């Protein structure tokens, strides 16, 4: 049985190659991480609320992710934004209407201003019901 001894030159060569390979892997990892970095997504403006049949006649459905209230009345469907028109806080739904917890603006059940500091009514949001039968609401 013959034994091979590693010369100093070979050892240095092997070590150097290993170190450079590790450097390459680390650099590659950094590059992948850099390329995979994503910017923060913007606030969504298009919401798919599912089948419109989910909203029964006479229902008031809170959708906090928008935030909005989907109202289904005899007159039809409407979507009322719950973003206060003063500075953008989310208003709270009460039996008498809507109250902004930030600065006390009050709105009647139709979203009209009853008390400031807000001066504009709550927005009625645009929506479409395409062929898939889903309710799509837009905040922009």
């Amino acid at each position, binding site marked *: 049985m013959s034994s091979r001894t590693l010369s100093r030159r070979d050892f240095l060569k092997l070590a150097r190659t290993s*170190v450079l390979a590790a*450097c390459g892997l680390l650099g590659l990892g*950094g590059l992948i991480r850099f390329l995979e970095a994503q910017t923060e997504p913007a606030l969504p403006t298009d919401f798919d609320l599912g089948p419109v049949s989910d909203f029964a006649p006479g229902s008031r459905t809170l959708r906090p992710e928008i935030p909005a209230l989907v109202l289904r009345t005899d007159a039809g469907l409407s979507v009322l934004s719950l973003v206060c028109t*003063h*500075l*953008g806080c989310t208003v709270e739904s009460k039996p008498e209407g809507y109250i902004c*917890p930030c600065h*006390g603006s009050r709105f009647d059940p139709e979203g009209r201003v009853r*008390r*400031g500091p807000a001066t504009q009514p709550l927005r009625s949001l645009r929506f479409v019901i395409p062929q898939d039968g889903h309710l799509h609401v837009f905040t922009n």
Partner: protein
Amino acid sequence: MRRYFLFFGSVLLLLSLLIAAWQESRRPRPVALIPTLTGQVEYCLTCHSDLAQISSSHSVKTFGCVVCHGGEPLALDANLAHSTMRGGANPSDDSVVQASCGGDNCHGGSPETYSDHIQRATTSIQATYAGAIASMLYTFGAQPDLTARFAVSVVQDPQSSSGITGLSAFGQVQASNPAIKLFGQNCLNCHISAQPLPGTEYARFTGCAACHTPLTPVGLLPGEGQGVTPQVHKLTTAIPFTQCDTCHNRGNYDLRSMTFQSRQDLPTDRLHAYYQPIAQFTTCEYKLECNDCHTRTEAMGGGSLYGSKKDIQYIRCKTCHGTPTELPLTKTLTDPNDIAFRLAQLNPVIDLKIGDTILMTDKGDPLWNIRPLSDGSYELFDKASGQRYTFKPVKGSGCTQDPSRQDSASCHQCHSVQR
């Protein structure tokens, strides 16, 4: 030799890369917030997610952090993130308040929308110190009368309705009197932009936060708050008397040496927290919070430049108690946009409704925390603790005081408590 050089060079490169990777791994994963008001991403919550929301009026989800504090919203390095903050930790300091808190919809609006807070605060006696300066200059012969001409710093207000449209900086005073120079050196720190004196009994911020960020919990006397960690990320209109006492009742200015002589006694109860040994006080004066009676106009200013404290501070005993011949002024709330509702919403110690009657000052300021009861008495809600008190009017009480003499000194003749 070249082989060794290449070997050690590659080891050095590996070490550098490992250190870079290690530092990168220590960096926190960013926590993004997109406030609805700005729609711009900010990473402040990466480190500050445990910070309490500053007030219900400043929802972090709506406002975020940067709109008030400034700073670099996308930086994850603390030094870089904080490098462009306004006013350090206090964006309400007078030097930056317009950028931090201003704007038509915030605190830089008009009196009609009740949003002229910055105008009020920066022109108020609390900021200018104009009355004390005028009084001192007149006393030492540097000006011929008590007219206010100087403030701590320059203030111009061409729209001022008080007749004073501008005040020069105290540094412009041309006087050689050593007392005036000492006043400038030692006494100009008595305003809301000045840094407080050392000591927990003086601890307060500057600007709006000087009053609206109480550093002693409600109910504790000045100095008793030691050891209690105050919530400094807080803005409130529920201001306890202790916050007023960080400036007031802390001592006196010695007019001979023009130095501040701090009080040496530690008050053991609220009555003795006052620092006017010969002054007299009635129960309400030492049980209530200062702002239970003193209106926001008095405390924060009326929006114009004033030459003296007496030009803006006008509440008297009769404002709440009336006189032997007249009941206090009242007002029935019919307008849903009445300022009383706004103030009660900010500090909900009372549930005001349309049709409620509240007390009102003779200048029209609402005393929104006080309303008459059906039995002829009145109820008052302490603005800091929410505690309910009741009191009776002077009329019908048997008081024989001359109705034309309703200054506090006259009332104190019978109603002061022993100190």
